[in-house]
């Protein structure tokens, strides 16, 4: 297991509201043009700069869409 925080977006649960993107201080979460099962362009993880601030998890309205592991 990595000693760095890691964030995962479960693509098929994402409704592309974009709130996690706004509140990510490291630009780790970004919009994409990948259309998911719900028909939304899902948010994706763009880099491994995650600092584990949990802003994304806290603001995300969809249960299960974001998982964050902080070592």
């Amino acid at each position, binding site marked *: *297991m990595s000693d760095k925080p890691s964030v995962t977006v479960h693509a*098929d*649960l994402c*409704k*592309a*509201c*974009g*709130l996690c993107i*706004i*509140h990510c201080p490291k630009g780790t979460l970004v919009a994409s043009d990948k259309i998911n099962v*719900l028909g*939304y362009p899902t948010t994706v993880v763009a880099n491994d700069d995650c600092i584990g*601030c*949990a*802003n994304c*998890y*806290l*603001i*995300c*309205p*969809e*249960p*299960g869409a*974001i*998982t*964050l*592991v*902080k*070592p």
Partner: protein
Amino acid sequence: MAKVYEKSPAFFDTFERKPSMQKTTHYCPGCGHGTLNKIIADQLTELGLQDKAIFVGPVGCGVFIYYYFESAAVSAAHGRASAVATGVSRANPDGVTISYQGDGDLAAIGTSNAIHAANRGENMIVFFVNNNTYGMTGGQLAPTTLIDQTSTTSPTGRTVKNDGYPLRMAEMMAGLEAPTLVARVGVNSPRNVRQAIKVIKKGLEIQRDKKGYVFIEVLSQCPTNWKKDTKEACEWIDDVVSKQYPFGVFKDMTDERDAVERRCERVEFSAIAKQLGLEADDSSSDAQIDMDKDATQFKFAGFGGQGVLSLGMMMAQLSMQHNMEVTWLPSYGPEMRGGVANSSVVVSKNTIGSPVVELPDVLVALNRPSLEKFGPLVPEGGMIIYNSSLIDQVPADLKGSVFALPATELATEAGTAKAANVVVLGFIARKAAMFKLADLEAFLTETFKKPALVETNIKALRAGWEVAENL
């Protein structure tokens, strides 16, 4: 040790109660409901209260709360969640009662329910999700809509002159003596979510400790009906909405309050029966009424004051005393006298599905309009008894066996015209061989109590009985 932020086990893994798309909620993208659901779920998990939680759902966007939480849940009628939660809380003193309501539900149609539950200091936590609009129905003006805010029913904006001021529920609740914790929080930014988590955790701890009523107003963004993107909607809460509805803890009596025990004692049926003077008579048998069919449907109709409702009630009570299943369904106008009235009674050997009588096996018509209305509905093999004292014309198209009974005349002879219904009771009891005369007399003695009334009614009963016997 690693900390994992993930979907709480207080949620169902798959939302199987949801008809489709069972992995995601029904909330719009960016809606504050989802965020609040997550906070509640996480805190139920953290405090180990998931199995004690009983949700009471509203009408509004929060209506499907039972889709998501793997806890007990009840849905209430519009605005009644706090009232239903009162019952839930009292009947389940060891549970954690969570009333989840929106502003259309709690601050409009259900204001009185909400305020009185708070004023009684019920052991419950109320989440009041305030998004200033009726979200589910498409964005109409709510009591909480801001001044100048447009909605589908205030297209040029809310005005004080027309609609009054936005209702500040948290401040109102904080003005009451009973509540233990009253606060307003937001779920529009990570900063506000962190604050909301603290308050909600405290509120759930108060419930765990039975320390009374908690009211948490949650300002929630509604990007869909506000016609804003999610970023604008969240910013609008900080910039505008929270100026009208400031964040904060308005009342916190957690340390001053003791646990409120409202233990709901289980009462044995025999104790209730004793209180009501209905002590079981051990000598009674299981004998039922001998009927041709498993169920007989009665319609007793007349004008108000003729006693058709009481006649139905007597038939139902007598049948019940004979171990039958019964229903009694009255239908009457607002008039105390005059007007038309009828009662439908079903007497059955089995459980009754519906109390509605559409095709009566037995019709009693005490006036002409009733005979004209219901007579043609009686099928072949049915029985029609009409009051020949008041009805001189009988419709030609009746199919059942028709009996003319001068009920009003016989009752007047017995002492009062009001006893016409009892004349009919005697007639039916004898004609259909339903009850013994002695049982009927005992019943009337118990019902009318005053000796003079009992005597008159027994006379009327016998008059009807004799007409049937001499047919």
